C-alpha cells in the first residue's frame, strides 16, 4: 500500500522460511499457549498409548488406578475434591471424582486422550496426504480427470460427516481402526478441494511454464513445484482439521460408534454420563472440558500458523 508498509511486509516475508514462521508462532502469545496445550496433550496421549496399549495398563494399575476396572471398595459418582453430594465427599484420592462404576475419572481422562489424539492425528495425516495428491493431480491435469475427481469429492462432501461415518462404521464395524479409516475418508475431500484451488493458481506461474518447457515430467513438476508451493495452507488446514476430527470422534463415541467400552474415550465417557448427569453433573463436565481444551489448543496453533503465513492479518 504505502512504501514503508510494503517494505515491512517484504522484509518479513513469511515464505522465506520455517524460521520466520516458528519465530512468529513463538512471538504470538496466544499461539504459544496453543502449542503448550497441544504438546502437553500429545505427551499424555503417548504415555497413555505406551502404558495402555503396549504394557496393558501396567503402570496405571501398579502406581495409580486401573482405568478399566474400579478399585475394590470404591464408590461410584463421587464428586470432585472439596464438594459433597448424596454419594459422599470428594477426596484427594479421586481429585475429579469417580464415574458410575467407581472408576477414577482423572485416570480415565488421561488414558482416554489416546483415542482422540490417535484418530485426530493419524486420520488427519492420512486424509491430508491423500487429499493433497488427489487435489494436485486434479488441479494440475484438469479435463475429465478433474471432473471425475471433483464430482467424487463433492459426493463425499454432500453426505454429512457424521452420517457417513455412521454408515461406514455400521458396515465395517465399530473398532478404532475403522474409525481411523472413516475419518481419513471424510477428511480427504477437504484437502483435495483446498489443494486443487491452490494448484489452479500455482499452475499459471512462470516457473511451472519454464519447468514444462524444459521437459520436466508432469509427476516431477507436481512433486517438486506444485505441492511444496501449496504446503502452507495445507499445514494450517491440517492443524485446524485435527481439532474438527477430535470433535467428530467424540461425537461418534457419544453415539456409540468408536472405541468400545471398557476402553476409555472422552466421547464414550460423555455418553455414559448422560444417565447420571442430573444428580451428578461433574461426570459430564470433565470429559467435555478435556475435549474443549484439546481442540482449543489445536485451533490456537492453526490460527497462529495462518497468521504467520499471512502477515497481512497479523495482530
Amino acid at each position, binding site marked *: 500500500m504505502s512504501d514503508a508498509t510494503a517494505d515491512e511486509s517484504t522484509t518479513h516475508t513469511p515464505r522465506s522460511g520455517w524460521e520466520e514462521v516458528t519465530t512468529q508462532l513463538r512471538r504470538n502469545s496466544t499461539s504459544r499457549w496453543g502449542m503448550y496445550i497441544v504438546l502437553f496433550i500429545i505427551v499424555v496421549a503417548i504415555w497413555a498409548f505406551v502404558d495402555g496399549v503396549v504394557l496393558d495398563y501396567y503402570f496405571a494399575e501398579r502406581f495409580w488406578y486401573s482405568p478399566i476396572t474400579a478399585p475394590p471398595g470404591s464408590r461410584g459418582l463421587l464428586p470432585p475434591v472439596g464438594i459433597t453430594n448424596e454419594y459422599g465427599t470428594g477426596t484427594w484420592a479421586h481429585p475429579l471424582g469417580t464415574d458410575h462404576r467407581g472408576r477414577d475419572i482423572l485416570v480415565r481422562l488421561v488414558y482416554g486422550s489416546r483415542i482422540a489424539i490417535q484418530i485426530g492425528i493419524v486420520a488427519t495425516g492420512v486424509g491430508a496426504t491423500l487429499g493433497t495428491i488427489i487435489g494436485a493431480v486434479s488441479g494440475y491435469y484438469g479435463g475429465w480427470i478433474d471432473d471425475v475427481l471433483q464430482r467424487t469429492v463433492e459426493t463425499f462432501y454432500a453426505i454429512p460427516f457424521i452420517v457417513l461415518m455412521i454408515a461406514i462404521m*455400521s458396515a465395517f464395524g465399530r473398532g478404532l481402526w475403522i474409525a481411523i479409516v472413516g475419518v481419513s475418508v471424510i477428511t480427504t475431500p477437504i484437502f483435495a478441494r483446498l489443494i486443487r484451488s491452490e494448484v489452479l493458481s500455482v499452475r499459471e506461474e512462470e516457473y511451472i511454464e519454464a519447468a514444462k518447457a524444459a521437459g520436466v515430467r508432469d509427476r516431477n513438476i507436481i512433486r517438486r513445484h506444485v505441492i511444496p508451493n501449496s504446503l502452507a495452507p495445507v499445514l494450517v488446514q491440517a492443524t485446524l482439521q485435527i*481439532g474438527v476430527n477430535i470433535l467428530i470422534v467424540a461425537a461418534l463415541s457419544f453415539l456409540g460408534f468408536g472405541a468400545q467400552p471398557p476402553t476409555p474415550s472422552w466421547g464414550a465417557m460423555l455418553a455414559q454420563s448422560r444417565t447420571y448427569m442430573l444428580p451428578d453433573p461433574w461426570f459430564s463436565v470433565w470429559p467435555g472440558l478435556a475435549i474443549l481444551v484439546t*481442540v482449543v489448543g489445536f485451533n490456537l496453533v492453526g490460527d497462529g500458523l495462518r497468521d504467520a503465513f499471512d502477515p497481512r492479518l497479523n495482530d
Partner: protein
Amino acid sequence: MSLPRYVARRLGQSVFTLLGVVTITFLLVNAAPGDPVRIFIGPSADASAIAAMRAQFGLDQPIHIRYIKYLMNVVQGDLGQSINYRVPVTQKILERLPATLLLVASSFTFAIITAVPIGVLSAQRRNQLSDHVFRIFGLIGVSTPSFWIGLLLIIILTYHLGLLPATGLVMPWAPPSAVDHATTRLDVLYQSGIHLIMPTLTLGTLQMAAIMRIERSSMLEVLNQEYVSLARAFGVSERTILRKHAFRNAQLPVLTVIGLNLTTALGGSVLTETVFSINGIGTLIITGVNARDYPLVLGTTLFYASLFVIGVLITDILYAYLDPRISYGDES
C-alpha cells in the same frame, strides 16, 4: 453465462452428486455384515419365513440388479419399504422431516443474525476489548462438542433452574389439542418456542462461532483492500465504507462457509436430536443403522445429501448474485 444457465448447470452437477451419494451409500450399506431380516424376525425364525421375507424385500437378488432397481425406484420417488417400521421409507422420512428442518432452520437463523453483526463489529473494533471477547467466544464456540453444550444446558437450565423442557420438539403448526399445556394457538407457539431454545443453541453455537470467525477475518481482509483505501481517500465516511463498500465483498467467503457448514449442521442435527430426544431424521437414521434397516439408512442418507445440495445451490445462486464476476462467465 447468464444466471439461469448457471443455475441449470449447477443443477445438472447436483444430479451427479446425488447419484454418487446413492452409489456410495448403497455399496456401504450392502457391505454391512449382519442380516436385517434375521435381526428383525429374531434368531428363532425358521428358514422358510426368512426366505419369504428376503424375497419380499428383494434381498435374494444379486447386488447389481438390486442397485439398478433401487435407482429406478429413486427416480420415481420411491425409496422402498422400511424393514423396521413396515411403512414406505418416504412416508417415514416425511413424517420426521419437519422437526429436523425446523431445528436446522432455527439454528442457522440464530447463527447468521447473531454472527454477522458481531463479526463486523469485531473487525471494526479490531484489537479492542470487545474484539478480544468476541474472538475468545468464537474460539471456544468452534472447539466445543455441540452435544456437550446440550448436556450442560439441560443440567443448568432444566435441572437446576427448571426453566426449559429438556426433551422433544413442538411444531408451531401443531393443533392445540395435540400439545401439552396448550389450549390456544398462542400456547402452542409458546410451547414450540421454549422447546426450541436449547436445541437451537446446541446446534447453532458452532455455526455461529464459525460464521463469526470468517466474517471477522473476511471483513478485515476487505478493509485492507485498495478500493477501500480509495473510498477513504475520496472522503467517503467510515460508516458508508463499512456498510456499503466493504460489507458486500466480505460476504462472499462468508457465504461459502455457510454453504459448506450446512453439512456440519446436518450432521450435528443427528447429535442434537439424540441429546434432546427429538423425533427427526437424525434419530431415524440411528434407528435404521442399529436395526440394519437398509432402505431406511439409504433413504435418510440420500435425504440428508439432498438437503445439503439444495442448501449449497441456494448459496451458489446468492454468490452469483453478489459477485458480478461469476454470473458473467468468469467462472473458476
